[in-house]
């Protein structure tokens, strides 16, 4: 292999130097401690797995008892119906999880669909900049940089199943007053 000419080397060197200089100008984030506890939590999110169906009597899978405030459940069903064209949204799984500042957070309302959340900083209005990864078994379906805010959830339309569709909802709980 021939070595690059001096002028070509300079062509690479200066941008690298500028980047190094730039990166060293700001303080680096602290390295996470080796032991996880106590982990600083930024917010609390609800991961909800819905089965969207045309049939109100569609038999649901065996499940643990999943509860949600009736007003919240009704409001969410109405909002989901504006996006996904199904009349019925059955809540089949729920996981309320803290989002940590320095650790990945897993939201697992189901063994079949789960969500990895990496906190990326605060957003306007008390929301969170997050990196999301929606997993189905060993496969990541989608990766996304987005914002979750109190009152503004993220709806992830997932795979079809039994004539309906699985929908993953992630919503930030309003901070306690």
């Amino acid at each position, binding site marked *: 292999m021939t070595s690059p000419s001096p002028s070509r080397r300079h062509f690479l060197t200066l941008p690298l130097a500028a980047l190094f200089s730039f990166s060293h100008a700001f303080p680096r984030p602290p390295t996470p401690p080796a032991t996880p506890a106590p982990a600083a939590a930024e917010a609390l999110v609800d991961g909800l797995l819905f089965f969207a169906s045309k049939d109100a009597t569609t038999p649901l899978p065996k499940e643990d008892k999943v509860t949600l405030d009736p007003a919240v459940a009704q409001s969410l069903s109405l909002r*989901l119906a504006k996006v996904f064209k199904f009349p019925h949204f059955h809540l089949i799984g729920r996981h309320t999880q803290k989002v940590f500042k320095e650790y990945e957070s897993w939201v697992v309302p189901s063994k079949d669909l789960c969500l990895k959340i990496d906190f990326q900083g605060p957003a306007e209005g008390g929301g969170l900049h997050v990196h999301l990864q929606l997993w189905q078994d060993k496969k990541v379906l989608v990766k996304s940089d*987005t914002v979750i805010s109190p009152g503004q959830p993220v709806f992830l339309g997932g795979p079809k199943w039994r004539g309906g569709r699985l929908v993953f909802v992630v919503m930030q709980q309003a901070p306690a007053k």
Partner: protein
Amino acid sequence: MNDEPNLPPNDELLLRWIDRSLPEVQLKALDLSAPPAWHEQRAASQLTGNLLRSSLPRTVELPSPDLLTSRIMEAVQRDAPATAPASNITPFPSRFRQWFAPLASAALVAAGFLLWNAKPHPRSSPVAETYTPDSRVIARAYFSDDADATVIDLENLEAVPDSREIRAFNIASADPAAPGEPQIFYAANGSRKPVVVLSHDAASAPHLRAIP
């Protein structure tokens, strides 16, 4: 961990001198003995650094690596000409090229950052940037005013077989696991009954084991 690129010794020395990351004695020695070309490069580098610092917020957020890579690849494919046009341009004299090349490359880096900063930041509005590892899957991301929600609608996903029972849970928040240890999630009903155990395989994919 050393995260600097593997450069020839002189280039590495130049980088470390520009970056002021050499021992003080060596810095002072080089300040006196460095060739004029090095001083020119350091001045250009400082100019670029100042430009970047004055133009970017203190907390620059770049997209996640997969998203950034996919966006760059899309831009390259979109902007690449079908064939390189034949050039009739007379090359610059080599002496001119010697100082123009580093300056131009520095300007390119600075322009890239400035353009990144100038375009409407995707995270300033509740819309998602998406990447699907499976190229057959399409992610339609938008903000639904009607639903007051960000929507990521995945199309062309393989359907879950009807015969499959979806195993769902109702579980409470769990603290992070110790490094290398599985994470245990407990029932949300206050019973502290373990419901599911999360571990990761060698490829960092999650492995979930439901506890009967």
